[in-house]
């Protein structure tokens, strides 16, 4: 359930960088054509492109698979974020709750989300619900822990200001607690999204749910390297797009930080 948060950076800032990447692709082309690495493992770039085109075209399944994986990821992530923020806020504002619950939270933190799959399978079988529940549970922790931290780490001065103004608990959460925790919450949500994608893919592999995870597993088993690579490319695109968009949202919401 731990992963590195990404900082979205502007692309193509230097032509040289693009040329280096093109050179790597050229290396790929050479390696596959010259047979340095067997074409069973390393398809040619054109073959990959063909598989991508065919798969994304009207008759192909890659488009629907990509959509399925993306939706699964988003669904789980949104659910996880809502639960994580709600529970995190409740635990975060109460020092007593934190004292009793924090150690347990710290124990669950390093637990791999996918480790809960056998348990989920035992309870829910090999179903979409199983995958969604593990995704949501796994993706909840980064947000929950970040929210708890965000609420617990309110500047002592702001706590006193709240007392001086006699803010009620609810007003405090709304005007001070939540905004103060927002940077932490957003960072947690970014981690969450990464976890969400990973667990969705693993879930699709294990539970044979339609999606990119299952697609690349089947492609590997059938030795269809180009289809495998096409799937990997698409998963990279999902990862890239979701992180970039979240990065924009984060910057927009935290405008006051850069001023």
């Amino acid at each position: 359930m731990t992963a590195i948060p990404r900082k979205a950076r502007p692309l193509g800032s230097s032509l040289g960088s693009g040329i280096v990447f093109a050179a790597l692709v050229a290396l790929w082309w050479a390696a596959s054509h010259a047979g340095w690495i067997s074409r069973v493992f390393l398809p040619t770039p054109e073959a990959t492109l063909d598989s991508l085109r065919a798969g994304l075209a009207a008759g192909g399944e890659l488009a629907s698979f990509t959509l399925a994986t993306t939706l699964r990821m988003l669904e789980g992530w949104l659910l996880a974020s809502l639960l994580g923020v709600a529970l995190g806020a409740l635990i975060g504002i109460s020092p007593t709750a934190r004292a009793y619950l924090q150690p347990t939270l710290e124990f669950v933190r390093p637990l791999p989300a996918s480790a809960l799959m056998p348990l989920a399978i035992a309870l829910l079988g090999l179903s979409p619900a199983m995958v969604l529940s593990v995704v949501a549970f796994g993706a909840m922790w980064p947000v929950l822990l970040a929210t708890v931290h965000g609420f617990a780490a309110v500047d002592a001065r702001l706590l006193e200001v709240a007392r001086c103004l006699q803010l009620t608990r609810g007003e405090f959460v709304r005007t001070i607690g939540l905004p103060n925790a927002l940077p932490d919450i957003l960072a947690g949500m970014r981690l969450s999204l990464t976890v969400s994608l990973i667990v969705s893919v693993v879930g699709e592999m294990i539970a044979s749910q339609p999606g990119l995870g299952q697609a690349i597993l089947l492609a590997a088993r059938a030795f269809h390297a180009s289809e495998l690579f096409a799937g990997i490319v698409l998963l990279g695109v999902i990862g890239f797009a979701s992180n970039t968009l979240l990065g924009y949202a984060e910057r927009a919401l935290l405008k006051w930080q850069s001023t």
Partner: protein
Amino acid sequence: MRLTRWLRPWWFPIALLALFEAYLRVVVQQSDALAPPSAALRAFIGLIGDGSLLRATAFTLGSAALGLLIGTALGVAFGVWFGLSGRAARLSLVSVEMLRPVPAVALIPLAMLVFGFGLRMEIAVVAFATFWPMLLLTQGAVTQVDARLLEVSRVLGLSAWQRSVKIVLPACVARLFVALRLSVAIALVVAVTVEIAANPNGMGYAMMIAQQSLDPAQMLAWLGWIGVVGYAVNALALGLQRVVARRMGAAS
């Protein structure tokens, strides 16, 4: 009282386990899906006895460690290079941005294809997963060496080698161990995930098999053990990070 404070972290999990135990014994009584914690404990002891605990744990930790080693070695090497050479950093930008977003799990089928099942496949995926954080954090650590320290090195007339060894490297070490701690966590998570998804070895696989054989006690025993191992490994890594930070003069 000191004893109650020492016990405080345990109240919640104990209560939860007790509730779970009571629920399964009294309400459910017989289930293929779940087992009471007491049964899981018994199963756990059985796993120690027949040696499967040691075997599986050794496999998972071993593959995680080896994958981490490769990922760290390559990541730190590239990270130092990109950190010291602005040109290299700029030229590598697009390639890094294109390759990094690929989730490590997407490479499981590829690793399976190339290496078949076993140790090498898992090491490969773990190495890929840990390479990126080590690369980026090392690069960050190197570029963020205090400009003032670099000015001092110029004023003192240090050679490039002296500068790297006496200033840059020591300045980075603390942050490198923070990166390492993070990567240790990732390595373990990815290793277990690979075992659950595909690789028929290790703790993750043992847990899957237990579930498929409708042995919930053993499944839960593995789940608990994976949690304990993860916690212990993370705690050790954190301890190491703190020791290094103190030695390198961090204020604590």
